């Protein structure tokens, strides 16, 4: 229990630090959201008016304080740039709520691909006695792990999009319009995210299984007359999967972060692209919440992984 409280405090502390850092960064970055919105031709009076509307004329400390109290009350604020209708600005919560499904589905499809491909592959690899297969898989996974995701994205676009015409690059359909088409389009960016992770997971699973196979209980199981099949799937795989699950947890965190780049490559309107464009347009309310959100997800997933470790191996003590 004490451990959970400590972790919780750490989480809150971290989020606070991150929010202060992001706020400070926005004070330092050159560029002013008002000029960014109005361009170079607006009258000074109009600029002043907008500054007031956005509350930018108040001192920074007060602004930060107001922002924190609003967020704690559940009000995430409004975007400086995106409007909901012509009379009101888009609430940040709604804006992110709109883009988040794209990123989450991308992560989900990637994760499904990883699990569906990597686990059978890892098992096959561990069971196989063929040196040839071992060598091929060794090389293929090594190479896959060395490809940066954005290059993989370009390769996938070229191979599946331009040469094989499995999909039309840029023909993204919104999930609200056509969910099936949306998932179909996501398949290819997801593949770009998944390939290196599949290689890692398969290697990890294989090594984990090979270690298990040498364990004493395996010999005991065989001696008790268990079939090879039963030993493999009943004992070895189950035990070997535990560390793999935690490994997948880490991968989720990486996928969330990695989607920032992949969304850029495939032109997906997810939170990664929203973040990059919001940084460049100095849309502070959106940037702050997105950064906090991504940080939260990453820390939370690590936290879960940590707990899983503890569940699996109670010997782990705090370091």
């Amino acid at each position: 229990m004490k451990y959970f409280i400590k972790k919780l405090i750490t989480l809150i502390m971290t989020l606070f630090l991150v929010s202060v850092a992001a706020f400070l960064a926005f004070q330092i970055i050159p560029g002013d959201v008002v000029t960014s919105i109005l361009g170079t031709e607006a009258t000074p009076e109009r600029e002043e008016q907008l500054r007031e509307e956005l509350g930018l004329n108040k001192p920074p400390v007060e602004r930060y304080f107001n922002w924190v109290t609003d967020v704690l009350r559940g009000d995430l604020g409004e975007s400086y740039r995106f409007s909901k209708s012509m009379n009101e600005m888009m609430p940040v919560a709604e804006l992110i709520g709109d883009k988040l499904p794209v990123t989450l589905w991308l992560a989900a499809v990637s994760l499904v691909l990883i699990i569906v491909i990597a686990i059978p592959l890892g098992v096959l690899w561990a069971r196989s006695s063929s040196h040839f297969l071992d060598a091929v898989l060794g090389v293929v996974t090594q190479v896959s792990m060395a490809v940066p995701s954005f290059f993989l994205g370009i390769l996938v676009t070229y191979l599946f999009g331009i040469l094989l015409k499995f999909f039309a690059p840029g023909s993204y359909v919104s999930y609200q319009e056509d969910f099936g088409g949306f998932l179909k389009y996501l398949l290819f960016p997801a593949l770009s995210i998944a390939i290196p992770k599949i290689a890692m997971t398969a290697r990890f699973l294989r090594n984990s299984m090979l270690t298990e196979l040498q364990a004493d209980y395996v010999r005991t199981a065989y001696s008790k007359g268990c079939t090879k099949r039963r030993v493999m799937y009943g004992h070895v795989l189950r035990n070997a999967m535990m560390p793999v699950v935690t490994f997948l947890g880490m991968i989720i965190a990486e996928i969330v972060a990695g989607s920032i780049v992949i969304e850029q490559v495939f032109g997906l309107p997810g939170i990664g692209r929203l973040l990059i464009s919001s940084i460049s347009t100095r849309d502070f309310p959106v940037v702050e919440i997105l950064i906090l959100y991504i940080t939260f997800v990453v820390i939370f997933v690590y936290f879960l992984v940590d707990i899983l470790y503890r569940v699996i191996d109670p010997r782990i003590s705090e370091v």
Partner: protein
Amino acid sequence: MKRIRILLTALLTMAVLGGCGSDGTGESSGDNSSKEPVYGGSVVVGIQQDIDSLDPHKATAAGTKEILFNIFEGLVKPDENGNLINAVASDYTISEDGLVYTFTLRENVKFHNGNVVTCEDVKYSLERVSGLLDGTPLISTLKVIQAVDILDDKTVQVTVESANTELIYSFVAAIIPAGSGEDAEADPIGTGPFSYVSYTPQVGIVLKKNPDYWQTGLPYLDEVNFKIVNSPDSAVLELQGGTIDIYAYLTDSQAQELQETFNVEASASNVVQALFLNNAAAPLDDVRVRQAICYALDKDSINDFVGGGNGTIISSAMLPTLKDNYVDLNDTYGTTANVEKAKELLAEAGYGDGLELEIAIPSNYEFHMQTGEVVVEQLKEAGINATIKAVEWSTWLDEIYNGRQYQATISGITCDTTPGYLLNRFQTDSKKNFINFANAEYDALYLEAQATLDIQKKIDAYAQLQRILCDDAGSAFLQVPANMTAINKKLSGYKFYPVYVQDMSTVFWTE
């Protein structure tokens, strides 16, 4: 409309295409321009960015104004040759001293809500943009309006502070119903050929035909849908898939891809691209160094490399499409590199051993970034060691445009139809003079040009101003890049304007 906007999105996807140039203005020369117009139907136009405001007086983005052109009209409006034609006003006169404008309203011009435009509406609209209404001027050039008086039910008289023959170009400001300013964002009402139907953020805006439009016979189309496309890539796909019919900002490779299936046309943009030099920053405060840079550049090859050869080379701040006022000064520094001359001038200025130059470029403009790479390479020949510093657009606005903390930058300045507009910014004290150009002769001549009511005198003065800017090497002006537009082959009547306008009123289906 009287507003130059430092190039927003257009140059991002600035297009290039060999062998398909037109002179940039006038009607589309598609192979079916002779076909009979068919009334009715709807057209989907792909646009690059979301609308920033539906209030015509508050909209600043070029991408918004090119759409609002269809909904709103001013007392006057621009045509495809850059001239003004009467719109809500059927006639106007300007007093000898240039201080009083008298507009006669056109008979029976109706707002989209069915009401006839009255002098009250005109008075309200002009007072709103000039700040007389609530102290906040919305269009800076109209701040000079001192009073708007209604003389009779068809005549409005506008009194201004100081004479300026180009002020008339600012009367393109939209006329909206009296008192409707508060509602303009939610329910925009104008007098244009199309009326507002709906707007969905990040999706687009839908307009329908205004059956009461004062120009009889126009528009042809029943409905126009401006649809936001996610990326230039998806624009091409949507064109090919038939979900959009017109798209105006193609890149080179895209234009070539579409050439078979679409009418793809190059037209001159209203952007002046230049290597802007900060005249107040050493060593560029020495005119010889600036001239050396002008000599060192090979504008032809810049145009070839980044513009597919479709751009128009310029040497001063005037659009060649503004034919009456433009003077060709390309002989001054030549359109190819003159390295000898450049080195000579540098040596004279004390930089015989070369010099360092930092060029800041807004990184979101691929076109400018690529130009930068070519420029750096060309300057190297003359012993100028230039480096590129990519900056974000927001940073560019803040540090370079407003802060003027830079040596050189590559960017574009856009122009409306007012010929003096680009020249105005280079007055020593202009707020927009971000290159810190300082030339007393220029300032005096500009004021003179503004004051004169004699058109020929004015044209001569503008020619002289362009010459001074060029000879004094205020900056190294490069080119007016081309826009590439793809149009469905079954459509005709699309007009290219020298300003940001997507005029849908003359577009029609041929079958």
